């Protein structure tokens, strides 16, 4: 998709409709915002900091995509995963 083309081959953060945070390299997209991510990991937010779960390759269906953010690698390195405490993101309610 045209809007997402500049993000291709870059590290992106996908917020899914069910409230998950998935980070990976954007390998492909299409008209309906289906996305293929490689070298994925899920970041699980809780009151005990962020837990990172490796996932491999993921195809996320367009309807399940809420937001795709371009990750600034430097800002991301400075992120303190253990001390970032937050409730998990709420799901999208249509």
């Amino acid at each position, binding site marked *: *998709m*045209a*809007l*997402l083309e500049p*993000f291709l081959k870059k590290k992106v*953060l996908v*917020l899914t*409709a069910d*409230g998950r*945070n998935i980070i990976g390299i954007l390998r492909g997209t299409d008209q309906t*915002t289906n996305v293929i991510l490689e070298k994925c990991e899920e970041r699980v*937010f809780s009151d005990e900091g962020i837990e990172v779960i490796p996932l491999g390759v993921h195809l996320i269906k*367009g*309807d399940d*995509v*809420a*937001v*795709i*953010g*371009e*990750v*600034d690698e430097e*800002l*991301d390195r*400075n*992120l303190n995963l253990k001390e*970032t405490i*937050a*409730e998990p*993101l*709420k*799901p*999208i*309610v*249509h």
Partner: protein
Amino acid sequence: MLFFSFYKTLVGKEITVELKNDLSITGLLQSVDQFLNIKLKDIKVNEEEKYPYMISVKNCFIRGSVVRYVHLPADDVDVETLQDHSRLEAREQKKQNKQHIEQQKQQQTQTTAQ
């Protein structure tokens, strides 16, 4: 088409997009497409301490379908033009609907004849 064209006039302006998961993202409108998907740059999530998910993100894409509201810069919105365009588009839409109904009627008569 009306809102797609409208958003194009707001490129470069600051807007706040409120999502259906209660997240609010403020940023400069970078681009928009016909699905009203939105791209923002230099973003800030409102109440970032409570919602720290996007701290390492500066530019983002928001899927049109997850948008609840968009808070617009009132001074950059020309309401007269919007109202005129809404009337025009309504007229256009009505014409198309009528044509569609006519076509369907014709198809039905053809099938009955057969």
